[in-house]
């Protein structure tokens, strides 16, 4: 798809350092804004406050209020303004404070931004990035905890990135900003303070290239966003039982690197797909379906899915914690698949 800036592994001789996810996002924005003065940020409390998550701190000081623009609480309005600015030569990064508010901007995102290039027969471009977040267990209840990437992934014309660590957060955001198409990037807000190794040098991560986080032979665990860590922890637990799990991060769900996923499925014969969106009619269904279609005769067990429970997200911690996928849940499911226990069920 879009021309990769760098391959999946970092270039030789790159100095690395640990930075937080939040800092990685900040760096990506600052670097792109330095290189391209058409890059602007639009959103609520993005300037002096640097967002409630303090991710954008320092940007308004460097780039001024003409480029880091505080808006009123008008999500449909400022998204629409972003679309129009993008059509006429800017590269707006629209900041949506909570992923749950995507419901407010669906028309501007899905009827306008996603379709303008097609409806104009290729004449209009909308190089806009919508940066937003996802993730439960912050005790923020049903309207501030959703992971709604599946619903936008369903709409042709949008690219969807889901970084799983600081490294991906920076590299995918830089690619998103340079992309001439509307891109939605979902950051797990629970990961903002997590650190990871990130190169000192500039890099970008191409869209549509999954990353094999850990190689394995017995079962494939596919995880998006923070579910990559959940899968890695489950893989550790499986290792202790002598089961060798492969962990894959698709990194972008549109475009989806079907090839890497299918090849892994063919190799291991067993797959679990883990995603923090609601399970039904979600991302896990799509990935599982593609694997079943393309690797069916190699599979020893049905591809199974673990998403968030199909319930609104409850406030009470005792309830909220059981709605999201956990390493234990993935481990148990993997054990069932490997032991053939699911044969009875199916």
């Amino acid at each position, binding site marked *: 798809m879009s021309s990769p800036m760098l391959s999946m592994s970092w270039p030789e001789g790159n100095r690395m350092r640990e930075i937080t996810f939040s800092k990685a996002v900040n760096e990506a924005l600052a670097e792109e804004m330095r290189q391209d003065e058409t890059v602007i940020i639009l959103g*609520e*409390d993005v300037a*002096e*406050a640097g967002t*409630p998550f303090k991710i954008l701190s320092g940007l308004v000081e460097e780039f001024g209020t003409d480029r880091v623009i*505080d*808006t*009123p*609480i*008008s999500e*449909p*309005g400022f998204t629409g303004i972003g679309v129009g600015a993008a059509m006429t030569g800017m590269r707006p990064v629209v900041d949506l404070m909570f992923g*749950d*508010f995507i419901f*407010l901007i669906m028309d501007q995102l899905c009827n306008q931004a996603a379709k303008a290039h097609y409806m104009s027969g290729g004449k209009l471009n909308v190089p806009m990035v919508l940066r937003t977040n996802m993730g439960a267990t*912050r*005790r*923020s*209840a*049903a*309207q*501030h905890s959703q992971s709604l990437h599946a619903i936008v992934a369903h709409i042709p014309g949008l690219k969807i990135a889901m970084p799983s660590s600081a490294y991906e957060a920076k590299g995918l955001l830089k690619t998103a900003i340079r992309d001439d198409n509307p891109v939605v990037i979902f950051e797990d807000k629970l990961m903002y303070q997590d650190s990871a190794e990130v190169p000192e040098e500039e890099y970008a991560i191409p869209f549509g290239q999954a990353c094999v986080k850990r190689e394995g032979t017995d079962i494939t665990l596919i995880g998006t966003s923070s579910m990559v860590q959940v899968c890695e922890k489950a893989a550790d637990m499986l290792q202790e039982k002598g089961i060798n799990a492969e962990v894959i991060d698709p990194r972008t769900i549109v475009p989806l690197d079907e090839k890497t996923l299918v090849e892994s499925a063919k190799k291991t014969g067993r797959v679990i797909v883990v995603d923090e969106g609601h399970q039904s009619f979600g991302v896990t269904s799509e990935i599982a379906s593609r694997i079943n279609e393309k690797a069916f005769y190699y599979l020893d067990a049905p591809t199974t899915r673990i998403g968030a*429970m*199909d*319930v*609104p997200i*409850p*406030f*009470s*911690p*005792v*309830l909220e914690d*059981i*709605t999201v996928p956990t390493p234990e849940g993935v481990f148990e499911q993997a054990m069932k698949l490997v032991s053939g226990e699911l044969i009875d069920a199916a």
Partner: protein
Amino acid sequence: MSKTKKAELNAEDALRMFRQMLRIRTFENNANQLYLSAKMPGLTHMYSGEEAVAVGICDALLPTDKITSTHRGHGHCVAKGAEFKAMFCELLGREEGYCRGKGGSMHIADQSNGNLGANAIVGGSLGIATGAALTAKLKKTSDVAVCFFGDGATAQGLMYEVMNMAALWNLPVIYACENNGYSEYTKTEEIAAGSITARAEAFGIEAHQVDGQDVIAVNALAKSLVERARNGEGPFFVELMTYRYHGHHVGDINREYYRAKTEEEDWKKNRDPIIRLRSWLVENGHATEEALDEINAAVTEDAENAVAYALNAPYPAASEVDMHVFTDVEHVLA
């Protein structure tokens, strides 16, 4: 404060409102403590400083009248008649909470008193309140609906859509805009062009601006508008000039970059709605300082008991997680 209006208020009503304002302040102080001592899950938005708005308006309503509330919803909840125990239980995610712990601070509501919910989407309940008013009109119940929302919510297009319909259809709804000068970390003048009341007036809606720190003025206005709305003269719009004492939420501690401490001190010292009503009660001989202190002590004790109760109240059973998704399915994932 307008002398005439105040004179009209009888001691009983004033004392009731005094107590309700104190209850809100006390609730919030306890909630803040629960946060600071890490006993409360998540964050919460304090209503302290804005008590006269919720109380002045809700005191003019009947339990059957409806309100909708916001992310800053504890005050409306108390003012519309809720009890501390079920409120603290909700705040702490316990089963005995008004929402069985499923809603938390941002969805807290005593539904049986006509509170249709706090709402974590800014402006999200403007349609709901207007719909409640439509029900009142169609069913001829003579209920009134009050929609509470902040100055920040005036930036949401939904407000103009529903004001238009409320005006076209003469609905018994009162739009109560709590203008506390800020939306999150931004001053109102930076996010609101022109005049907020003029926006309502452009739809043919009668609009008022009132000192939201003067519970007597708020209540007098509310009583007259509620009465008129019941008689089919609605909708109405009220902009209530007020102030929040705390940060945007309990975690917003270092806030001098957007708001001066002196400004906060000024509002707290010189315009506090509770202090002002207290003086009025004493000056007019409606109550002694001692009597008011007793009310305060009773409210404090009530709150402390409720907190203690809630801290020990049981969490919902894990099996609750897939209940109440649909009305007619016990466990949706069973």
